[in-house]
Structures are given as structure tokens and as C-alpha cells.
């Protein structure tokens, strides 16, 4: 699991990172909102832990900006103790959870686990629209402007992940979590992305899934 930690206090950031790494997470650090935004736009994270008070761009603005870009990576906000307004504003802006400083590391770990476990890339929406297509979550019907096609459950889940993170490279390791054959991971990823590309082409989608060094990414045609 890959987490982005956005915290401007270097000592605190280092301490949180060490603890998360010890618990088995891969942690990437950002020290202000702008640096975090650039990272989020181009990389896939399973979760984001972000402070609110930060230089250049505060945590709430960062959250609003990424949600506006249809990136719905789960976000845990770290708020100053007792700042009810911060908590309310954060949740309204699309935070999945918050934790007041100072906090016990054990609680932070529990909240991160819970946030990632309960995250679903489709949320409560009935469909995802992206580019020229619309994907129904109830039936996994993939519809273009003048034709439609049915996707299997697995294909639907994989495509949802891409459509909810359209600017990011989805790493191979993340895609493996959708796969069934442990002995044929790479081939299975290749097969499923190729199946999805055939089906996107069939409904005349204006994008496809492109293979890059570290994973696959939505690419405009």
C-alpha cells in the first residue's frame, strides 16, 4: 500500500513516516500543498494523510482541488485540536476522515487501515462518466455515444479504478490486486487491459489504457 504524507513539520513527518513504514506501508512525503498536488496528479496512492495548516497551499484547498479534478483517493486530514470548523470544512470538502493533533500513533494506524478498507473507487454514484463514455456501476454497461457493450465484473472494477484516477499511472502492483491467477499476474494484467481496450474501441471511446514503465494510465486518442 502506497501512502502520501503531506506535513510541513519535518520532525513530525519523519516520525509518522517511520511508524507507517514499520507497519508495512510505502510512504512518500510532501512538505507543502503545491508539492503534494503535483505528486497526486501524476501518481497513484492508496491513501493520503494531510495536515491542514501548510505553506503555499493549505490542506483544505489541496483537498478541494483534487476532488474538483475527479481524483477520489481517500484522504485523512490532520486537524489542530479542537478546531471544529476545520473538521466540518474538511469533511464537506471531501475528506474521508480526520484526526485531531496530538494523536496516538495507534489511532492513526487504525484510521488509515479503516479508510483504505472502506474505500470504493465508485463511491455512491450510479455511473462514472469520462471522455466520450459512461460506465454504469449497477450493470457494468459501458456506453459510448451510439453503442454500448457489457463488461464483466472484473473488467468493470478495473475500468472504474482508471476512470476515477484518470491522470495517474496505476501501478502494476495495484492492478494485481484485481487478478485471480497468482502464477500469471503479468499476462493477466496484459490480457485484461487488452480486453478493455478492445471494448473501449468498440464504443468509440476517445481514450485507451496505455502501458508505461511502472503501470497503466488513461491516454487520450
Amino acid at each position, binding site marked *: 500500500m502506497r501512502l502520501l504524507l503531506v506535513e510541513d513539520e519535518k520532525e513530525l513527518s519523519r516520525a509518522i513516516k517511520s511508524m507507517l513504514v514499520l507497519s508495512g506501508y510505502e510512504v512518500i512525503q510532501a512538505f507543502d500543498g503545491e508539492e503534494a498536488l503535483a505528486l497526486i496528479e501524476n501518481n497513484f496512492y492508496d491513501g493520503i494523510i494531510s495536515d491542514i495548516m501548510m505553506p503555499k497551499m493549505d490542506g483544505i484547498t489541496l483537498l478541494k482541488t483534487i476532488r474538483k479534478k475527479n481524483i477520489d483517493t481517500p484522504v485523512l486530514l490532520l486537524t489542530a485540536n479542537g478546531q471544529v470548523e476545520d473538521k466540518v470544512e474538511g469533511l464537506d470538502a471531501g475528506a474521508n476522515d480526520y484526526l485531531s493533533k496530538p494523536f496516538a500513533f495507534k489511532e492513526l494506524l487504525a484510521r488509515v487501515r479503516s479508510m483504505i478498507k472502506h474505500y470504493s473507487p465508485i463511491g455512491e454514484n450510479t455511473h462514472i462518466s469520462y471522455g466520450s463514455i459512461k460506465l454504469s456501476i449497477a450493470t457494468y454497461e459501458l456506453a459510448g455515444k451510439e453503442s454500448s*457493450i457489457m463488461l464483466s465484473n472484473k473488467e468493470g472494477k478495473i475500468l472504474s479504478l482508471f476512470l476515477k484516477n484518470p491522470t495517474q499511472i496505476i501501478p502494476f502492483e495495484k492492478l494485481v490486486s484485481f487478478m485471480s491467477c497468482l502464477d500469471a499476474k503479468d499476462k493477466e494484467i496484459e490480457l485484461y487491459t487488452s480486453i478493455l481496450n478492445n471494448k473501449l474501441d468498440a464504443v468509440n471511446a476517445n481514450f485507451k489504457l496505455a502501458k508505461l514503465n511502472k503501470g497503466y494510465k488513461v491516454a487520450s486518442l
Partner: protein
Amino acid sequence: MSIYGDRLAQLEAIVEKGKTLIQEIINEEVKTSGISPIEHFKYRIKCEESLINKLNLRCLPVTMESIYTNIHDLVGFRIICSYTSGVRTVANKIISNENIDIILSKDYIKHPKPNGYRSLHLIVKLKDSDVPFEIQLRTIAMDSWASLEHQLKYKREIKHKDLIVAELKMCADEMSSTDLTMQAIYDLIKEEN
């Protein structure tokens, strides 16, 4: 006596030339890639009953002139391919054949009909003939859907018509989905060998 009169022989000649052309495509593909993209093919000269129905439906007179001007599938071929890539390969071979003129191409694979029908239709003419004829190309899955839908369409008194139409459309979308999955599997195997 056939409704086509003296011109029946002309239609029969088109059938023979068409059969030869398709067989040549099969031979060529087997020679270059070791496998034919064509699973099987059929052909027919339009029967009298179907011809008169079509003319009546379009309010056209039943005369020889009207038949040859308005009906473009007096001779029809249906080529069934194993995979969607095969449909494209065979269509390109037909389009680039120097003995054939393409009059019209209707791509119901890229742009399926609202009921879900998928197929590639080519209206063509042999260089040495003035009679147009139709070549339909589709996969096994597209063909089985079209055949079953055709049978169901002619059942009398269908209740819940909207429901049936919507469900048939979903079957077409599901079968097309399977077609494209099979295509990806085929490509993966081909790439590994």
C-alpha cells in the same frame, strides 16, 4: 419460370465469381498466416417471395427495371469470421480487389443498429457486370445473435415487446463483449507463438 427471366443466368454467374473470390481470399490467408479468418460462408439468390415483399414494403412497382434499379441484394453473400480482426482483414481484401467496385459500405460493427445488430455490409459490383450485390461480414457471435433475433422477430403476438427488445439488445451487447474478449485471448496466444 423465375421472376428474373433471362437474367437468372447473370445472377448465377455472379454467385460463381463471388464463390471463387472468397475461396481465393481463404487460400491466400492460409498460405500467408497458416489459418483462414473465415469460419464459413453462405450465398443465395433472393427468392421470389422475399423479393416481392421487399418491393411492396418500399411501395415499388414489381417490374424488371424496378428490381434491378432498387434492389441491391438480388445476390447476397454472408461471410462468417472467427474473430472481429478477421472481419476487417477479409473486408480489406475485398475492398482492395481490382475486380470489384465498392458502391456502399455500411459499418454496423462500429455503429451498431439501435436493436444491437452488428455486421459489416458491402454493396459491390464486379467490374464486368452492372448488377450490384451485397456481401455481409460478421463474426460467429454476431451471426448467432442475428439468426436468433430474426426468428424471434417473426413470432406472432409478442407480449411485453419493449422488454423483449431491451433484453435482446443486452444479449447483443453481451455477445459482442464476449467476441472482443475472445479476440484479446486470440491475440495473446498468437503473440506468444
